[in-house]
C-alpha cells in the first residue's frame, strides 16, 4: 500500500460524494501502549487541509479490509495533520496497527456533533475520560488549553486499567506541570512502585477542584463508566444540561442513512456522537437499544 503516483495527482473533488473515501498518507505511527496506537496522516492530492471540530469522527478505510469509525484525537488548530488514536482490537484496527509510514488510508469525514466548548466560556471545565475515551476528548483539551483564559478551572480526570495503559503520557506530564490545569490519573490496579491513584475514575470526582454550579463536564469512555460518572457529577451538583457524553455505536454510513448506529430515536453518527446527557439518559439504562 505504498504511495501510488496516481493518488498524488488526484484532482477529483471527493468531498462531493460523502461515501467516497479520500486518500491520506501515514506520516507517523506511534504506539501509545501495548494495544493503543496513534497515526498521523496527511491528505493526498488536492486536499491540503482537514478542518474538524473536537469530538468529531472519521470513517477510516483500510483498503481491502474494511471501514470503521474512529474519533479524531489531534489538535484542531493543526489542520494539515489528521490524527487518530485507537486500540488494535478488531480486524480493521489490527490491520491499521501493521501499517507504517507511507501507507495509505481512506478517510471520510469529519462527521458528527462536536463537544460544545463554546458553551463552556467562563465556566469550569471538567473532562472525565476512561480508557481509550481520552482520545476523543484530546482535541477539546487542546482547544481549551489554547484559549485557557476563557475558562475557569480546567480539570482532567482520567482512569485506565494499569499504569502501562496510560496513553499520551508525555502530553499528560506536560499538562500536569502547568499551574492552570488539574490533571488526575487513576488506574484499576498497580504494583507497589506506582505513586499515583488507584481506584475507578468516579472516585476522583468528589474531591476534584471545580465549582459544580458553574461547570461544564465532558465525559467519554465505556457507557457503564459514563453512567457512574454522571451519578457522581450529580452528587456534586452538576445538572444534566451541563454534562455532555460521547456515545459509541457501530457507525456504517456516518450520514444517518443506514440505521446501523440507531440509538432509540437518534442516529449516533448524525445526532451524536456528542450528546447532552439529559437527552439520552433514559436510553442508557435500557436493555436492547
Amino acid at each position, binding site marked *: 500500500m505504498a504511495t501510488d503516483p496516481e493518488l498524488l495527482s488526484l484532482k477529483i473533488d471527493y468531498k462531493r460524494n460523502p461515501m467516497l473515501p479520500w486518500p491520506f498518507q501515514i506520516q507517523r505511527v506511534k504506539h501509545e501502549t501495548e494495544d493503543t496506537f496513534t497515526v498521523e496522516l496527511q491528505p493526498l492530492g488536492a486536499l491540503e487541509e482537514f478542518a474538524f471540530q473536537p469530538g468529531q469522527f472519521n470513517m477510516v478505510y483500510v483498503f481491502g479490509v474494511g471501514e470503521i469509525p474512529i474519533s479524531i484525537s489531534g489538535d484542531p488548530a493543526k489542520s494539515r495533520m489528521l490524527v487518530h488514536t485507537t486500540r488494535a482490537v478488531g480486524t480493521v484496527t489490527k490491520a491499521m496497527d501493521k501499517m507504517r509510514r507511507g501507507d495509505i488510508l481512506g478517510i471520510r469525514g469529519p462527521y458528527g456533533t462536536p463537544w460544545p466548548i463554546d458553551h463552556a466560556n467562563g465556566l469550569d471545565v471538567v473532562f472525565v475520560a476512561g480508557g481509550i475515551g481520552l482520545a476523543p476528548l484530546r482535541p477539546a483539551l487542546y482547544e481549551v488549553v489554547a484559549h485557557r483564559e476563557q475558562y475557569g478551572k480546567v480539570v482532567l480526570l482520567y482512569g485506565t486499567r494499569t499504569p502501562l495503559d496510560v496513553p499520551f503520557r508525555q502530553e499528560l506530564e506536560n499538562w500536569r506541570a502547568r499551574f492552570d490545569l488539574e490533571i488526575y490519573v487513576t488506574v484499576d490496579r498497580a504494583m507497589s512502585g*506506582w505513586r499515583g491513584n488507584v*481506584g475507578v475514575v468516579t472516585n476522583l470526582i468528589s474531591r476534584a477542584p471545580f465549582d459544580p454550579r458553574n461547570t461544564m463536564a465532558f465525559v467519554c469512555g465505556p457507557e457503564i463508566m459514563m453512567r457512574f460518572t454522571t451519578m457522581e457529577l450529580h452528587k456534586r451538583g452538576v445538572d444534566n444540561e451541563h454534562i455532555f457524553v460521547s456515545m459509541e455505536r457501530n457507525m456504517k454510513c456516518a450520514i444517518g442513512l443506514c440505521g446501523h448506529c440507531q440509538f432509540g430515536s437518534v442516529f449516533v453518527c448524525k445526532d451524536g456522537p456528542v450528546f447532552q446527557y439529559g437527552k439520552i439518559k433514559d436510553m442508557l439504562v435500557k436493555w436492547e437499544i
Partner: protein
Amino acid sequence: MEDLKNILAEHPFFKGLNEEYFALVVGCATNLRVDAGKMILREGEDANQFYLIRSGKVSIQLMTPNKGPIIIQTLHEGDILGWSWLVPPFTWHFDAKAIELTRMIALDGKCLRMKCEDDHDMGYELLKRFADIMTKRLESTRLQLLDIYGDRS
C-alpha cells in the same frame, strides 16, 4: 486536644454525632505522622485503630506470592482508613502504606468497640457511618472488577 476536636468536628464522618458520643470519640483520638514508604498496618495484625487522613496519600495493598504487593486502592485527605477494628476477628485484611508523608488522626478502635458494646445506640451510629463508607468502597470495587476500560474500541 482542642485542635483534634475541631478537626474531627469538621469531618463529614462525624457530622451530626451527638455531643456525648463525639466527646468519647475525641477522647480516643491522637495525632499520627507517617513518613513516605512506611507501613501503617499489615494484614493479619490486630486491628485496634482506625484513621482519618488529614493530608497525604495511603495505598491499600495486598501481598501476592509472585507479583509482590498490588495496590488495590489509594486513600487521600479526608478519607477514613480501616474498619476491621469493628468486625470480628478484629484483624487487618490488607496492608496500608503511606505513599507520601501522611498526617492522620488515629482513633482507638478497641476502646470505641467496648463503648459500642456498652451503648448499642452509639454502636449503631458508628456502624451506619461505616456502612456508608463500605458501600462506596464496594461500589468502586465492583466497577474495578468489571474491567470497564477495555470495552471501548
